């Protein structure tokens, strides 16, 4: 079954609201109604963990009619602190948790007139590539309900792909925006590290996490990014020049004159042939648009997954230490000691994948192993970053790769094999390790399932990435089908 109702884009919706043609809450009501309808179905998507109720919708009333996102319903991944809705991170340990403050990105959306209609499902604390590791049940892929939507921002990707919302926020630590975008057939952007505030993004791996956007079109994903980007005094890792100019105002240069690098390491014989074919076709289109395609090398690419699966769990083991049952979260009663309180809270509240990564992260940081694992991974990370610097330093504007090595897999297929699940991120983690921006857009289908292509650029090159992606998108048609 296919969920692709024709929905207006962000520009059309907000224009209608600003013009007074429709009630400011109309699109929000439609979104909520569509989500409820889905929930009633036999096999529901389960893209949302919480949604505005009628009272809250009524309270929107005749809200403001101003702003770039006036009246546009937006879905928010459930690891972004939001007032008025729970923030659970897909975890039992934060079930029902209400944040006392709001993430900077959510505040910026509201200030632009957006209506936050609900919080989307995710792998617990962002740890997973299928959204099956949510404590509240998996999300299904709208393109095939027996398949996963990818993860960890699977709820956001599914909500956008199903037309429940025009756009959504996700977060991307190793591919968590781009991989589900690819598997659901939508656009996902992981910005340059430091472009978007992480204040209010519940940390998984702080040096890798970045809030990203998902939408049906490159333009909508870009508009959302423009709204949320920019320096934030509450996040010391945001850059002063992080704000993005309006790149969507019709840049006619397209992909013309850009040099697109194709890393040999990502196009080995092991790559699925039909995915390779779609990539070759997309590269041909880029050439047709006036780009030059050139082979490049990222010699340390093979170390990206191992480095990632040391650094991310190490940071996570520390970031998740705060869930100790003292100040907020799951309540366990009548424990005999503080240690028991900590252990019971964490053992009951955290899921298997989260525990696995906490143990792994604790292990690689512990005395005697610290240098061999964590120290080495950090140095390799430096080499991976240098690979990109070298390529971008020799006249290459952008790099093209597949987003994911496979299309959407079946629910349950990879649950028992963590390493195989981790390899879902093989093309995406490098961008996080190097802190560079990356974008996934649909480039076609294999067996009725979407395939995404990934564009990567130097730090702060989002305008160029978006320009090239918009040109490629219009050449390939919506969903990359043409």
């Amino acid at each position, binding site marked *: 079954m296919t969920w692709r109702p024709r929905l207006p884009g962000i520009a059309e919706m907000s224009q209608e609201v600003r013009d007074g043609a429709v009630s400011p809450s109309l699109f929000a009501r439609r979104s909520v109604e569509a989500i409820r309808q889905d929930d009633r179905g036999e096999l529901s998507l389960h893209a949302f963990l919480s949604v505005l109720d009628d009272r809250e919708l009524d309270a929107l009333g005749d809200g403001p009619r101003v702003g770039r996102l006036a009246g546009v319903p937006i879905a928010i991944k459930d*690891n*972004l*602190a939001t007032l008025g809705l729970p*923030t659970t*991170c897909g975890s039992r340990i*934060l079930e029902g*948790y209400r*944040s*006392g*403050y709001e*993430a900077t990105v959510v505040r910026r959306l509201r200030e632009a007139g957006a209506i936050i209609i609900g919080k989307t499902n995710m792998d617990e604390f962002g740890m997973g590539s299928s959204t099956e590791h949510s404590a509240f049940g998996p999300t299904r892929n709208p393109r095939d309900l027996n398949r996963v939507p990818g993860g960890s921002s699977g709820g956001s990707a599914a909500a956008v792909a199903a037309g429940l919302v025009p756009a959504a926020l996700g977060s991307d630590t190793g591919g968590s925006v781009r991989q589900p975008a690819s598997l659901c057939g939508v656009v996902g952007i992981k910005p340059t590290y430091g472009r978007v505030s*992480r*204040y*209010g*993004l*519940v*940390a998984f*791996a*702080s*040096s890798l996490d970045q809030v990203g956007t998902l939408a049906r079109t490159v333009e909508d994903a870009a508009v959302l990014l423009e709204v949320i980007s920019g320096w934030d*005094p*509450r*996040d*010391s*890792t945001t850059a002063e020049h992080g704000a993005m100019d309006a790149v969507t105002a019709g840049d006619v240069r397209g992909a013309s004159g850009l040099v697109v690098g194709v890393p040999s390491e990502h196009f080995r014989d092991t790559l699925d042939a039909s995915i390779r074919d779609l990539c070759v076709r997309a590269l041909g289109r880029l050439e047709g648009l006036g780009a030059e395609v050139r082979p490049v090398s990222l010699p340390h690419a093979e170390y990206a997954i191992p480095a990632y699966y040391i650094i991310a769990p*190490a*940071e996570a*083991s*520390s970031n*998740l*230490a*705060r869930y*100790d049952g*003292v*100040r*907020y979260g799951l309540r366990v009663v009548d424990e005999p000691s*503080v*240690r028991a309180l*900590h252990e019971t809270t964490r053992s009951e509240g955290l899921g298997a994948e989260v525990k696995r990564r906490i143990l792994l992260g*604790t292990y690689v*940081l*512990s*005395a005697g192993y*610290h240098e061999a694992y*964590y120290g080495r991974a950090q140095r390799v990370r430096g080499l991976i970053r240098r690979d990109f610097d070298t390529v971008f330093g020799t006249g290459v504007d952008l790099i093209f790769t597949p987003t994911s090595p496979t299309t959407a897999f079946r629910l349950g297929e990879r649950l028992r094999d963590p390493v195989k699940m981790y390899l879902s991120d093989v093309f995406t983690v490098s961008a996080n390790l190097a802190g560079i921006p990356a974008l996934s857009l649909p480039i076609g289908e294999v067996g009725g399932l979407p395939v995404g292509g990934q564009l990567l650029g130097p730090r702060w090159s989002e305008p160029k990435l978006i320009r090239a992606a918009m040109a490629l998108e219009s050449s390939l048609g919506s969903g990359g089908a043409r």
Partner: protein
Amino acid sequence: MTTDWEPVIGLEVHVQLRTPQKLFCSDSTEFGAEPNTHVCPVCLGLPGALPVVNPDAVHLALRAALALGCRIHRTSIFARKNYFYPDLPKGYQISQYDRPLATGGRFELQGSGGPLRVRVSRIHIEEDAGKSLHDRFDGCTAVDLNRAGVPLVEIVFEPDLGHPREARECLGGVKRLLEYLEVSDCNMEEGSLRVDANVSLRSCGGALPGCKTELKNLNSFSALERALHLEIKRQRELLARGAAIVSQTLTWDAARAEVRPIRTKEESQDYRYFPEPDLPPLELAPEAISAARRALPELPAEREARFGQEYGLPHHDAGVLTASRALADYYESVVLHAPDPKTAANWVMETVLQAMNERLLDPASFPIAPDALGELLQLVVEGRISRVMGKEVFWKMLDAGGRPGDIVHAQGLEQIRDQGRLHEWIAAVLDEHPDEVGRYRRGEVRLLGHFVGEVMRRSAGRADPRAVSDLLRARLES
């Protein structure tokens, strides 16, 4: 076995930086507020909150490091120290580990065998934890997070101290230094100055000390000194029996005046430090470092030495007067108006300090302005009023304000040297005491004081005692 053992002592000092705001958020650092009111998402460790460094705290830490002669690192790195404790909101403390703010300083003090140089190993910035209250409720521990995130520096000294008294001197000197720099209030009762000590024994002249033990919970200067004495004694006795010293942590129990071991679990040692990814490396521009160096005030040890040279004060006086920056400032202002530095020193050390103690006043807000005190001392030295009268005027000024000259004039307190009036009083006194006059003339010359006193009494303290004494002697011996 008669091996002689000498102690090797090192200190680790935690000092709360005197900033109105916390280290990583803008909550107040005020002491004594209602529990859990100076808290926000950041210091509560709410999911998603992020730290932002307080530049004021960095500046104060830099001052301390410069004053201790440390090498300042242009780049230092915050690191997470991971451990679980209910008053540690994030499950880690943001501190500095392998790249601290500063290393390699020194601190000089008077040791038992002359001047002693104590090396400073390192100084780093870190956040405080909250407070666990064990006695508030029955059967449970309560947690107040007002203190969580308050800025601290940790100063680690090399084990260069050889005696508990030197440890006390060192801590006292550091306290005076940091108060001078206005880096910290250094209030041990409020926890803004905390000290841990480590101690081991080595055979005299031997290079290698044995295993060391750590002493915690040393909540006062005397606790530091007494706990060290006890621990050194304990180690001596063990070694005398041929037993080994075990590395361990001990706590000082003030109520029972004893040190006893705290059981430590092996795993609690594994802090899994790694660089704090939420904070950029702390970069200090060379200009900022040199500006901070230029802005350092004269340090207390330098000032103490200068007081000796410039004012000719004895060592003791210079020490007392430089105990705090405000007192030394007050003294130097008085000197500008006083007849001589030593008179000023005597009055400040006796009368002024007595008044401060009795009235709970501090030098910065002492009601008698330094120039007024200087004027008073001029009156005394010039003999216009007596010393005793001077003290009286001092307390009048303290109570009611006013200039000393005006008070003396208005209340007629000036010393009387008019020979006619003095002779009248003297004649009256000698007439009243014929017996004593006889005894004086037979050789009991110490009775002179008695006659002077009587004359002073008759004059209500206004007669010039020196003139009285001279006149009396002339009269009695004529």
